[in-house]
């Protein structure tokens, strides 16, 4: 299915863009994370996932639907 992925903070540099539409085999957030972690060095960056602008619990595995917008949100430190 196709999902839109949005990256923030340090993840923009690692993923190489702010936003992309990606065709994925993943059916849920856990599979999506595994898919991304296998391809990109992101395991050292803490982040939260939001689906369609709503945060999902880190322990929760949420099913993905065609057209979902998934945001990867790391905390920022600067001030």
């Amino acid at each position, binding site marked *: 299915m196709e999902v839109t992925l949005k990256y923030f*903070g340090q993840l923009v540099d690692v993923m190489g863009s702010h936003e992309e539409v990606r065709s994925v085999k993943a059916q849920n957030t856990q599979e999506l994370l595994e898919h991304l972690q296998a391809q990109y060095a992101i395991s050292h960056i803490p982040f939260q996932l939001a689906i369609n602008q709503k945060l999902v619990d880190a322990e929760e595995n949420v099913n993905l639907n065609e057209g979902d917008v998934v945001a990867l949100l790391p*905390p920022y430190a600067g001030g």
Partner: protein
Amino acid sequence: MSRYQRQIILPQIGQNGQQRLAESRVLVIGAGGLGCALLPYLAASGLGTLGIVDGDRIEESNLHRQVLYSAKDVGRFKAEIAKERLEQQNPDCVIEGTTEFLSGKNALALFADFDVIVDATDRISVRYLINDAAVLTQKPVVYGSIHRFEGQVSVFNYQNGPTYRCLFPQAVEAPSCAEAGVLGTAVGLIGMLQAQEVMKIILGTGRVLSGELLIYNCLNATQERFQFTKKETPQITEAFYKEKHLKEAIQALNFNPELLEMGIFIDVRQPDEQPRLQMPRLIEIPLGELETAQQQLDPDETFYVFCQSGKRAKIAVEQMRDWGFTGVKALQEGARELANALRKSQVD
């Protein structure tokens, strides 16, 4: 009151709103980029008291974004100079500057005196401290943070709403402005969004950014909002606060043969763990039995605690300090390294 006339004529403010501002006390943690942006506007609005907490001194590399400071202020305390500038700007506003960093020890007492807390710091660990102290003292926190051209803004613990721990449960450091780089206008913009949230909380007008994270991208001029809800774990209690913010890190000591004369060694390993050590003054108490056995020990004596890796030794030291032992230290070395060091010292 003609000073505030242009805001008093706003229907959302009026004389009542101005009076509310004059009676409010706002504590700003951090007088860096965010603090310098939001402080002058809060002071100018006729806010009653502004507290500023920052133990940092002004550096030349701050001046491109920390616009309260001039080149001649380099080397002086930020909290002091900010207080001077803001007092000149609006003598109606009382400024209370603290030239100390926020810590687990001073946070609760400081927060208790204020109505709204502003998180304008630049480290993740301090953000958790602010969050937890605000929950315990029941204060709302106006949060702002920056990564390069992106800023995050939210309001935590507002009317018992979600907190920073509900948004980011994992405590891992992220790059600061010094490490990642930052543009003055970007941090200024985020500081201004924070100042606006402070005003809304005090005036009771508009929709406070509670349960929502706003991310503004200054390069693309885009913003997004993300909703999050309150989590019941962890429960932020006094015990939790003590555990997270008041525990002093146990420093481990390196062994040297002179220590043999200076105190009693405690081996907290299980009896079957090898090698066993021979020392003139050694007692063997497995960690699990320490609580019972400590009653036989003199709390004023000097003790050196070791185990196999050093981990249990630190736990033992923490426990013994809680029981009132004053001269107890953990050894860096595990039993194997100690055995080698002992053998070597006997050969010498």
